C-alpha cells in the first residue's frame, strides 16, 4: 500500500473536506425533496388541516357573549348569586346599554339563540327585549321635550357632543367605543374615520357621551358604510342631521343626577343648565323594573344565573352537552331526561360499527381465503366480484339497497313469493338499524376483503401441509398455524372498516330512518338545521379523537406507508 498523508481530513475532488462536501450534498438533496413536497403540504395544511382545527376550536369558543354584551359580562362576573335574590341595578343598566347596541346591530337574536341552546326561552326573550327597549328612551324624550322642544333635534345633540368647532376631541374614548363595535361586528373598524366626542363632555356626561358616540360610530362606520358601498361616504354634516338612538335620553337623565353643569361653557350650555335645574322633575331610570315589565323572566334570578354560567370566553359547555351534561351555575350536571340522546347515539354508533366490522370479518374471511388459495386465473375472475362493488358509486349501492330492502322491495317480494312470509307480514328491514347494518356491511365488505387477501397471499400453503403431516388435525392446523398468520390482515381490515363505519353519513341517512342513524347525522343536523355549531364541533372533536386513536393503532399495526389500494 502506498504511503499517503494520514494527517488532516479526507478531501473531496475539489479540495473541500469530504465531510463538508457530503453534508452539502445531503442538504441539497433534502432541500430538493422538500421543495417538491412543499406545494402539496402547504395546500393540504391551508385548505384541510387549518379549517378542521378552526372548526374544532368552535367547540370551546364562547366569545360571542363577551363580544355582544361586554358590560353585562363584566357585571355578571362581579355578581355573587345568592338564592333567589335578583342581581344589582348596575347589571340591569349594563344589559340595557349592551342590548340596545346589539339590537340596533341586529346581533341580539344571535346571542339569544346561543343561550337558547342551554335553556329554551332565551331566544324569544332576547327578541322581545330587543324590540321593547326603545320605549324607555321615547318616554324620556317626551319629558325632555317638555322642558325644551329642541332636545328632539339632531343638530342640538351633535353640537353638544362634539363640543363645537375647535374643541378637544377625546379620541381614546372613541377608540374604545369603536373597538367594542368592531368586536360585535367581527370586523376591524378605524376610529379615525368616525366620530369622537369632546373631552369636556366626556368628563361631564360620561354615560351620555358613550351612548351618543356608540350611536354615531355605528351609524357612520357600519350602517351607512354598508348601505352605500363605493359611493360618497357618510360625513359629520350628515351625522348632525341624524337623530340619536333612544338610549341617549335615559343616559342624559342618569348623568344629570350627578353632574355639576354650572361650570360648563361649551355649546348648548344654557339648555343643559335649564335641564339640570328641572332635574328633580325627572324620575331617574330604574332598569330593573324596565326589564321586568318587558318580560317576567328578567325578574327571575335563574335567568341571570344561566347567563352568568355561560358568560365565559372559552367554555366547556358544548363538550358537556355532547356527553349529555350541562354547564350550570352549580357546575357540570346531568342533562334533563328528555334531552339525553347523545350518549345513546355515541353508544349506538360504536355498537353498530362493531357489529358491521364483525359481520365484515365473518363474511370477508372465507372469501379472502378462497381468493388467496384458488389458482390465479379463477381467483382473478372472482376478484372482479369483489372489485366491482368496490368501484361502484356509493350512491348506486345505497340506492340498490333501498330498492332491495323496502317493504315492497325485492327481498320482501321474493320471500312472499316463496311463501316464507305472508303478504301482510312483510319484514321491516329499512329505516332502522337492521337496514343500516345490512347495507353498510355490503358497502364496507371490500375494504375488509382486500387487506385480508393481501396478507393471506403471503402465507405459504406448505405450512399447513407441514402441520398436517406432523399429525395436526384440520382444525388444529388451521387454528394454530394458518389463523395466527392471518391476524394482521384481520386487524388491518377491521380497523379500516371500523374507522370508515363510525364516520359514515350518507348510507345511514338514506336507509337508517330514525333508529339507524349515526353520530355523523347528528353533526350534520346541528350544522345545517339547528345551527348549534358549537355542539356540532364538540361532537366532531370527540368523533375525530376516536378516529385518530384508531388511526394511530392502524399505523402501529400496518403502517400508513403500507396502505395498498386495488
Amino acid at each position: 500500500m502506498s504511503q499517503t498523508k494520514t494527517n488532516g481530513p479526507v478531501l473531496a475532488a475539489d479540495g473541500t473536506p469530504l465531510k463538508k462536501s457530503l453534508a452539502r450534498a445531503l442538504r441539497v438533496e433534502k432541500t430538493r425533496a422538500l421543495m417538491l413536497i412543499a406545494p402539496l403540504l402547504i395546500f393540504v395544511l391551508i385548505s384541510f388541516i387549518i379549517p378542521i382545527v378552526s372548526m374544532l376550536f368552535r367547540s370551546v369558543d364562547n366569545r360571542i357573549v363577551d363580544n355582544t354584551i361586554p358590560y353585562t359580562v363584566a357585571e355578571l362576573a362581579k355578581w355573587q348569586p345568592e338564592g333567589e335574590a335578583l342581581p344589582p341595578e348596575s347589571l340591569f343598566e349594563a344589559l340595557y346599554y349592551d342590548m340596545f347596541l346589539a339590537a340596533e346591530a341586529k346581533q341580539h337574536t344571535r346571542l339569544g339563540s346561543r343561550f337558547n341552546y342551554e335553556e329554551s326561552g332565551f331566544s324569544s326573550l332576547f327578541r322581545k327585549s330587543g324590540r321593547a327597549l326603545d320605549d324607555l328612551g321615547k318616554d324620556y324624550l317626551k319629558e325632555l321635550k317638555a322642558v325644551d322642544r329642541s332636545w328632539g333635534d339632531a343638530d342640538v345633540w351633535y353640537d353638544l357632543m362634539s363640543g363645537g368647532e375647535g374643541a378637544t376631541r377625546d379620541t381614546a374614548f372613541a377608540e374604545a367605543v369603536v373597538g367594542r363595535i368592531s368586536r360585535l361586528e367581527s370586523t376591524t373598524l378605524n376610529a379615525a374615520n368616525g366620530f369622537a366626542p369632546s373631552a369636556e363632555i366626556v368628563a361631564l356626561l360620561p354615560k351620555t357621551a358613550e351612548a351618543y358616540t356608540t350611536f354615531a360610530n355605528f351609524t357612520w362606520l357600519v350602517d351607512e358604510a354598508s348601505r352605500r358601498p363605493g359611493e360618497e361616504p357618510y360625513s359629520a354634516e350628515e351625522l348632525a342631521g341624524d337623530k340619536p338612538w333612544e338610549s341617549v335620553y335615559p343616559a342624559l337623565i342618569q348623568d344629570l343626577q350627578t353632574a355639576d353643569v354650572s361650570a360648563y361653557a361649551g355649546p348648548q350650555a344654557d339648555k343643559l343648565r335649564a335641564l339640570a335645574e328641572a332635574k328633580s322633575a325627572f324620575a331617574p331610570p330604574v332598569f330593573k323594573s324596565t326589564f321586568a315589565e318587558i318580560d317576567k323572566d328578567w325578574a327571575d334570578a335563574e335567568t341571570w344565573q344561566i347567563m352568568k354560567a355561560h358568560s365565559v370566553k372559552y367554555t366547556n359547555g358544548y363538550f358537556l352537552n355532547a356527553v349529555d351534561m350541562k354547564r350550570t351555575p352549580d357546575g357540570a350536571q346531568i342533562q334533563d331526561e328528555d334531552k339525553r340522546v347523545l350518549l345513546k347515539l355515541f353508544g349506538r354508533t360504536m355498537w353498530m360499527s362493531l357489529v358491521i366490522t364483525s359481520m365484515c370479518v365473518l363474511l370477508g374471511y372465507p372469501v379472502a381465503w378462497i381468493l388467496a388459495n384458488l389458482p390465479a386465473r379463477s381467483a382473478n375472475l372472482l376478484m372482479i366480484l369483489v372489485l366491482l362493488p368496490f368501484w361502484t358509486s356509493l350512491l348506486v349501492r345505497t340506492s340498490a339497497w333501498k330498492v332491495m330492502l323496502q317493504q315492497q322491495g325485492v327481498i320482501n317480494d321474493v320471500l312472499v313469493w316463496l311463501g316464507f312470509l305472508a303478504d301482510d307480514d312483510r319484514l321491516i328491514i329499512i329505516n332502522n338499524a337492521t337496514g343500516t347494518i345490512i347495507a353498510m356491511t355490503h358497502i364496507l365488505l371490500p375494504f375488509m376483503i382486500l387487506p385480508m387477501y393481501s396478507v393471506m397471499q403471503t402465507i405459504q400453503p406448505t405450512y399447513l401441509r407441514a402441520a398436517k403431516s406432523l399429525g395436526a388435525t384440520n382444525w388444529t392446523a388451521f387454528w394454530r398455524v394458518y389463523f395466527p398468520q392471518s391476524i394482521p390482515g384481520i386487524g388491518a381490515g377491521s380497523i379500516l372498516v371500523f374507522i370508515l363505519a363510525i364516520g359514515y353519513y350518507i348510507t345511514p341517512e338514506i336507509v337508517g330512518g330514525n333508529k339507524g342513524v349515526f353520530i355523523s347525522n347528528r353533526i350534520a343536523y346541528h350544522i345545517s338545521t339547528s345551527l348549534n355549531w358549537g355542539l356540532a364541533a364538540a361532537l366532531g372533536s370527540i368523533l375525530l379523537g376516536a378516529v385518530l386513536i384508531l388511526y394511530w393503532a392502524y399505523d402501529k399495526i400496518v403502517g400508513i406507508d403500507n396502505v395498498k389500494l386495488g
Partner: protein
Amino acid sequence: MAALTPISRKPFWLVALITGGFGAFFGLFFGTANGSGPMGVLIGAALMIGLAFVYIALIRNERLGRGMTFVAGGVLGFAAGGIPLAVIGGLLGAVAGWLIYWAYEGRYRSYIAPYLTWYQVLWHYGFRVICGIIFIFLITPILVVLPLSFNAQNFFTFTPEMLRFDPAGYSLKHYQDFFSNNEWQRSFKNSLIIAPIATVISVTLGTLAAIGLSQSHVPGRRAIMAIMISPMIVPLIISATGMFFFYSQIGNWMEGTLGLDKNLVGYIKVILAHAVLGIPFVIITVTATLVGFDRSLTRAAANMGADPVTTFFRVQMPLILPGVISGGLFAFITSFDEVVVVLFVGSASQKTLPWQMFTGLREQISPTILAVATILVVISIALLTTLELLRRRSERLRGMSPG
C-alpha cells in the same frame, strides 16, 4: 387443471343422499310457494332419488339422461308458469342431471387431494357453497339495479310484466328522463366539470410530493405522510364541516376583494375541496409505484447529460405513469362519487350527480335514479378494466409476469 385423483363409480346410497338433499332443498322452496314445506321436501327428494335410479340403473347413457332432464324441467316449468318458470325449470333440470352423474361417477373427487377423508371433501364443497353465497351477497344489489332501470312503471320493484319477460314491461323511459331532464343534465355536467379539474390538481401536486417523499433523506417523513393522508382518514362529515366554514370565508373574500363571479367562486370552492380529498389516493398509489423504481436509472440519465427535467419526463415519468394514472382514477372516482363535502361547500348551482341522487333518494323518489345508477355501474366497469390493464402494464414494465 389436471385431475389429481383417479375416480371410481360410487355406490347408489351415496348418489341417493346427494341428489336427495338437492331435491329436498329445492322442494322446500316449491313446497312453501304452494302451501306446504314438508310435502315439498319429501316430493323433491323422492323425485331426485327416483330420477337418479332411472338414469343409473336403466338408461346408462349420460348424454341422453342429462338432455332429458333439461328438456323435461323446461317443459314442466313452462306448463306451470310461462317463460320465466320455464327458464328456471330448465336450469334446475340441467343442474340436476349434471349432479346425478357428478355424484355417480365420483367426479367430485377428481380435483382434490387423494388423501382427504369424506368429511374433508364435504367441507371442501360446503365451504365453496358458503363463499358462493357471500359472492352473491356482494354482487346482487348491483345486478338487481340493472334490470329495474328498464322498468316501464315508476316502481322500484319487479312488475309481473317484467317477470313474464313481456317487452311491454320494459322501456327506456328512465334513461330518456335522465337525458332530457334539465336538473339531471346540469348535475351530470357539473360532475364532469368538477371531477376532472380536481383530479388534475391532485395528480399534479400529489405526484410531485410523492417523488419528493421517495427521496432517501426527508426530514419528518412520517409526519408529512400522516398530514397528506389525513383527508382519507378524517371522517367526511368532519372534513365537510371544517371546509364549510373555511370556504364560506374564502368565498366571501374572493367575491368581495377579488370581485369574482359568484358562480365561478362556487366551482372553485368545490374543486379545491375535492382536490384535497383525492390527494391521499394519488400519494399512496404513486409512492407504491416508486418503491419499485430503480434509482440508478435517473443517475444513468444524469450521467449521460440529461438535466433533471428531461430525466423526469423521459425516464421517470413513463415508468411511474401506470401508478400516476391509477392514482388519478382513484382521485377522479373520489370526486365523482363524493356527496357530503359538496353538500356543505357547494351551492345549488354546483349540484353534482351524487348530490342529485342523494336528494332524489331522500325526497322525490324516481326510478331515474336507477337509470343513473346503471350508467355509473357501466362507468365503473370501464374504470376497473382500465385499472387492471394498467396494473398488468406496470408489472410487465417492471419485469414481472402478470398475475
